[in-house]
């Protein structure tokens, strides 16, 4: 699994880096950013799903099977 953020939708609510701090961080203006290459270790797949399902702007994409 891989995560990505659609910067056109992200408004900096920060739910992703609250819920999955190992996968997402905040930039200097508080917008979410994907840490590293966005590849999700198997043990963090639930965190990634929670982050995506709690984003108020539907800005997080999950690419399964990568």
């Amino acid at each position, binding site marked *: 699994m891989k995560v990505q953020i659609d910067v056109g939708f992200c*408004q*900096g609510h920060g739910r992703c880096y*609250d819920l999955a701090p190992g996968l997402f961080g*905040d930039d200097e*203006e*508080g917008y979410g950013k994907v840490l590293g290459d966005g590849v999700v270790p198997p043990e963090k797949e639930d965190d990634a799903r*929670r982050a995506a399902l*709690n984003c*108020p702007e539907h800005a997080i994409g999950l690419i399964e099977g990568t």
Partner: protein
Amino acid sequence: MAVDNRFAQDHWEKRDGESAGIRSEIVTGPVSDWTADFSHMEPEWSADPYPIQDDLRQRCPIAHTDRFGGGWLPTRYEDIAAIAADTEHFSSRSIIMGNFRPPVEIAPIGGSPPITSDPPFHHDARKLLLPAFTKTAVSRLQPATKEFCHSLIDAFEGRDVVDAAADYAQHIPMRVIADMLGFPPQDGPQFREFAKNTLEGINLPREERVTRMSALFYYLLAQVHDHLDNPRDDLTTFLINAELDGRKLEVSHVVGTMTLLLIAGIDTTWSAIGASLWHLARNPGDRRRLVAEPQLLPTAMEEFLRAYAPVTMARLVKEDMHFRGVEMKAGDWILLSYPAANRDPAQFDRADQAIIDRQINRHAAFGLGIHRCLGSHLARMELRVALEAWLERIPEFSLADPSAVAWSTGQVRGPRTLPLRIRRG
């Protein structure tokens, strides 16, 4: 170096705040029909708006009123989200629905940028402020906030009943924002008056409202002068020195943004802390579970924000338009109820219940779209620290007198009187 004389008496217009624009007749009194005469300023709305919103959502779902010069109240999540996202058709030039509508010419800046700003100006005005309000930046304020919460609880020594709204929740955001702006912490009671006048005073006679708003303006101007004389590391000095496109900000921008930062952070976070404690006082099962499982607090907090979202925004319709079955006119208000969005059963499972371990919670308590609450990370920090400190020190509490609980009126809703019987741990 040129003298900064932007703030000298003869360089800013004496503002009565409402020199141009449209005033409407002040209409108060019981609502005859919520679908056609709604008002967010009446006691039945303040006491419990949720059954009214739920009823409208089922049978209306976009209510109208002739009060405030005319306005609309959408109650479905999808309609509220669509309006929040549509800055083409809906302006933020006033975000408090009342009896005065500022002229179109005030856009795209508005009176308190960036909350009153429209694109493209909004983007740059907001960008200036974002770095001070990131989760990382506000985490630096956490130790002092925690210490302050504990000092408020220390002062409960010897009391069995305390007012959690007036003696606790209220003081936390006032202290935090005073520190950020570099205002004297002892001015807190004045901030409370300023916030109340701005948010709850909308049906006051015009002269009275103008007088009260002027008091806020002059207070802020005095703070600007104090910071010009004694610059320091705070948001006021930052705004005085900030530049957009290579130019320092207009006086109206500096003072307008200070107004926003002072007002927006106080009643809102006070409401969120108070409503959370109100819920826990009435639901001993949830209270005991949170005391036993403090790791659940982040999830519970989001649920309190969803179920008791304090903030409703407003927009103004730009041009006559058809919107999802209703005919909106230019200048009509939209009362943008994020609390109503948050209780839409089409969006949330068991929307009318507060479920403290709700795992999927795409709530809109901090708004949607480009105006996402600038202070959301600050508010979350304050709410978490305030609840952590309370639950750690006062694990047992209940409503001392349910009939004495009183809620604020208008677009920011939370308990203003909340007597709790406490037993410290």
